[in-house]
């Protein structure tokens, strides 16, 4: 580790998107033979930073240098220069074989443009052996599990003579055993002098693999520390910008009647799920990715068809054949991916708000535009939605304001049950606080709220009661939230 000649040097990097300052004056050094952990909450700017370094995005200001010379500005050239990025969504072609993927775009060529398959095989076997990956070179990549696909990507990077490997949340979809194996490989690569930038949310993993840590918050770099110089609490404080106990301003609301009652719900991966939610109650639904939490919400909402089970709202059976029925019964779903599933990005904020409410201000199919504008203005005022005007395209709002816009839509409908799927995903720290206050207010108004979240501190901080799911089933219920810990929830989630 020689600070004089870093492998990669990022300095003064700035990047803004409409409504968001993604990066501001970010500096970062990555060296040969070390693992640099890049930490930060969702929306802290990690992805933007990676995209700029890998050439997929441009910066507004600042420089990126590799061994002292500026990095080229297109993804292909950056890769050729030796900086390879492996994203969460792997960039392999599923239909092609392992060998074809390994050499895609860099095929060794014989005369007349024929691919030199023998040469490919020879080089591929060398690399796979180095990674300890035992796989048939002619298998289509789609037949491999995610962990192996990831190793194929790493092999691809090594074949491209990568000097710096950037990994964006590589462990998100892996089992603990697979993570351990990945780390063994990464340590070996580090010993061989490869530089590695590692992005993760999981602090345990940071302890296990990182040499140095850089923390981003709200698009600015908070600091750079040696991995053993910082306690876990200090690290969290650096990430969120304030002590943890203020992070979740939970106010318990008065609980009322049972509003939502789910019994024996089955469908897709979901098996026999039963629970109840009272008016004014926030029920946290925890579990690992793929545990079936989102699916439960979609089944209740009628977005997918349930194969068995009953859903009751205010004691009345809801036979939802589609979202329309559920909405009619007063159930609302606020999806995890607001851009893909919540909003019509090309339409204005007003039109997005009105979607699903049009029957309230139309007669004979004709929309009363004046009424629509005034109702929308009322919600903008009440929820503090920051829009430049009712016509601002919904796609240009910040994450927090998009979430508020969707909440406004369902408040106008007077929905009694609100199913929040990852309500703060992609929302920056300041706006998160407002979403939590909004959840409190909704509860105090007597709404029954289900909050699905992958962030255990959020579940622990905001819920009145916690349900934990694993493999499509409810594995446990925590009534005494105050004495529950992340570890106890995790234990249930992997049980």
């Amino acid at each position: 580790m020689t600070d004089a000649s870093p492998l990669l040097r990022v300095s003064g990097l700035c990047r803004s998107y409409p409504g968001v300052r993604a990066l501001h004056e970010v500096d970062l050094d990555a060296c040969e033979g070390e693992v640099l952990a890049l930490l930060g909450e969702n929306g802290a700017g990690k992805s933007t930073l990676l995209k700029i370094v890998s050439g997929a995005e441009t910066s507004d200001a600042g420089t990126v240098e590799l061994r002292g010379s500026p990095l080229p500005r297109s993804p292909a050239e950056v890769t050729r220069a030796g900086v390879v990025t492996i994203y969460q969504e792997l960039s392999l072609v599923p239909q092609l074989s392992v060998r074809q993927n390994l050499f895609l775009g860099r095929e060794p060529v014989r005369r007349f443009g024929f691919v030199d398959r023998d040469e490919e095989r020879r080089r591929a076997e060398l690399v796979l052996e180095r990674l300890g990956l035992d796989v048939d070179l002619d298998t289509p990549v789609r037949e491999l599990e995610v962990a192996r696909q990831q190793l194929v990507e790493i092999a691809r990077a090594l074949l491209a003579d990568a000097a710096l490997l950037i990994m964006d949340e590589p462990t998100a979809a892996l089992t603990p055993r697979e993570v351990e194996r990945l780390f063994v490989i990464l340590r070996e690569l580090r010993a061989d002098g490869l530089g590695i930038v590692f992005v993760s949310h999981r602090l345990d993993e940071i302890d296990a693999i990182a040499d140095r840590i850089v923390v981003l918050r709200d698009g600015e770099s908070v600091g750079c520390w040696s991995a053993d110089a910082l306690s876990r609490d200090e690290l969290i404080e650096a990430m969120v910008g304030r002590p943890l106990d203020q992070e979740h301003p939970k106010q318990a609301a008065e609980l009322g009647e049972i509003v939502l009652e789910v019994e024996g719900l089955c469908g897709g991966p979901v098996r026999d799920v039963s629970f109840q939610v009272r008016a004014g109650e926030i029920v946290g639904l925890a579990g690992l990715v793929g545990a079936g939490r989102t699916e439960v919400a979609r089944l209740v909402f009628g977005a997918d068809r349930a194969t068995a089970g009953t859903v009751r709202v205010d004691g009345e059976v809801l036979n939802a054949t589609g979202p329309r029925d559920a909405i009619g019964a007063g159930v609302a779903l606020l999806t995890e991916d607001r851009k893909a599933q919540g909003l019509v990005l090309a339409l204005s904020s007003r039109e997005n708000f009105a979607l699903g409410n049009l029957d309230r201000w139309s007669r004979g199919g004709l929309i009363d535009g004046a009424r629509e504008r005034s109702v929308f203005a009322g919600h903008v005022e009440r929820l503090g939605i920051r829009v430049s005007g009712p016509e601002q395209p919904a796609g240009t709002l910040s994450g927090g304001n998009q979430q508020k816009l969707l909440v406004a839509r369902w408040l106008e409908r007077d929905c009694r049950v609100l199913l929040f799927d990852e309500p703060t995903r992609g929302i920056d720290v300041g706006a998160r606080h407002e979403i939590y206050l909004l959840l409190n207010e909704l509860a105090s108004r007597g709404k029954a709220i289900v909050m699905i979240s992958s962030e255990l501190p959020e579940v622990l901080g905001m819920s009145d009661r916690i349900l934990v799911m694993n493999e499509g089933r409810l594995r446990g219920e925590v009534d005494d939230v105050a004495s529950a810990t992340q570890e106890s929830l995790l234990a249930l989630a992997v049980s």
Partner: protein
Amino acid sequence: MTKTSSKRGGWRSWLAGQGMLGVLLALCALFSVLTLQPQQLAGTRAAEALVDELVDTAPGTSIAVLSRAGAEGEQFVDELKRRLDETGRSPILTVAGSPAAIRAALEGASGVDVLAVPSDTAAIVGSIQSDLPGLGGARLMSPPTRSWPTFLLKSNLLNVASQIAVIAIIAIGMTMVILTAGIDLSVGSLIALSAVVTTWTIARMGGVEASLPIVLLGALGGLLAGAVTGALSGLVITRFRVPPFIATLAMMQVGSGLAYLISRGRPIHELPDGFETLGRGADPLLGIPHAVTLMVVLYVGAWVLLERTVLGRYLHAVGGNPEAARLAGVPVRRVLLFAYTCCGALAGLGGVLMASQLKSGAPTYGQSYELHVIAAVVVGGTSLFGGEGKITGTLIGALIMGVINNGMNLTNVESYTQKVVLGLVILAAVLFEQLRKHSAEKRAARAGAASG
């Protein structure tokens, strides 16, 4: 929003917002300049232009007012006679008739000093005059010409409008379909199917003698044939999730095949005279063709539908993000079904209109019209990815294509060259739109960055 942005960007951003309208106006200006030439006057206006000159001739001059037969000829003669009577210079002879009639009248007349004729009759009367020695000294007088673009003549503009009527009407339905991120390739063959169904029904139920109710029944049949086929496409697309491209490609074959089956491959001509009224008739007051009136009415209706109704909002939402729309409670399938049914029905109407214009129905009608219709929609600025588009843009798109066609005909561009030019114009329009959108996005991004 519109107000603030125009304030900020001034006339330039306003112009960018009206991009295709600007292109249309530029094309009109271009063809106006290219077709500027002396125009002959006819009818009443020809008479008005000539009367002063006649009154100025020496008193006692005897005037003959002559014109070939036809409405304009009669108007010319009547108006000129009335004006001359008012000034006490009544003509000694007035004829509006065939060359033979004019010759006969002139042979019987004597002492004619001035022959007053409209421009289109001057040559005929001139040759008659040279045959008749008695008229040797008479002056042949016709109204002066004036300079005016042929393109901008009222008759030509109405001609452009009626020529695009079929495409423009179907383009309404296509706009809805493309707004939902779909496509309908079957409209061309639905024109043929509808035209054949309409004319076949009328030919079977009276033919040349068919009464008005039968004609209306036939037209309704054609319209329904389009609507039902469109609905079928919609059902296949929504129920079985067949991509619109494939579903309507299949329907294109089915529709065309049915048209050939019903007509046995031959054009159907056994139609009453009244059948032309829709396609060739015009209202007696302003002379606007019924086809153009129908088109305008449909566009007004479509504008209201798309901009002011729940259904219109749903069409935009479904095209922009079908999953978000569904989760917001939008009945996505019904909206799609409506779009395809509506598009089919309008294609059916287009078929009826075309059959009426050509006074026959044949299975060869409408070939490759789907491409013209799609081109009109795309040139009009509707995104093929769905969610974005305006019906006014589609009308402008159809007009641009019609104007280019017409303008090139007027300037004697060869028809093969016309195809090349039309293709390039479509390409240019889409490129222009892309560039405009790109720079608009950049502007928005910069504005957003400044505020955030």
